[in-house]
């Protein structure tokens, strides 16, 4: 298994934070937004970013096993 470079690790960390923040924010918007169409879009975006977070985090977890 290839190891991550320092740069990859730093940038992964940054992107993981962004993915987590966006997933949380979009999920909050589901409860705050009044327009049903926009609410549905927020729900989809929240779910996608949650999945992206999981996918990215695998690159770190795989290497800790």
């Amino acid at each position: 298994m290839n190891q991550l470079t320092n740069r990859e690790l730093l940038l992964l960390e940054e992107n993981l934070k962004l993915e987590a923040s966006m997933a949380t924010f979009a999920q909050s918007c589901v409860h705050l937004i009044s327009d049903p169409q926009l609410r549905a879009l927020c729900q989809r975006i929240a779910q996608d970013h949650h999945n992206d977070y999981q996918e990215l985090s695998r690159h770190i977890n795989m290497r800790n096993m």
Partner: protein
Amino acid sequence: MPQHMNPNYSAMATTGAVGTTGTTIGNAGGIGLTDRDLFQIMLNEHKLMTMSMTTLILEAVNPQLRQDCIKILNKNFDHQRMIWEAMHQRGWYQVQMATPQEMQRMQQQLSHQPYSQQQPYTQQPYTQQPTHTQQTFHQQPYMQQSYTQQPYSQSFTQRS
């Protein structure tokens, strides 16, 4: 919550463009945020995320990591487009089309220095290029002109 995700912080950056078309929502901080405010924040955040993910892709050594990130980046582009379309349909994101005069100016600029007539680097080093070519570049540098007219940070505020 990081500062860049603070709704109050982002909403302040778009204060000039926030109208009354959205429904006002009360939040824990006591400041009302409209649907429009929330979508503006989401749009800005997606722009930031695409830049950050692009950097990761450009710096990635691991091929699997790179592939996964490209997939995520493409999803971010799709999100950004959906958010933008939702905002545009509601009149929350106005765009200004280039005028015929601006198009004509650009066409004239291109005709004065067509790309096909430029000397390839391999045949003629930069220092040996004809004087008139250097002057044209000096007078109208492409990058400098674009950034001067509409800085990226300002465009966020203006377009909201």
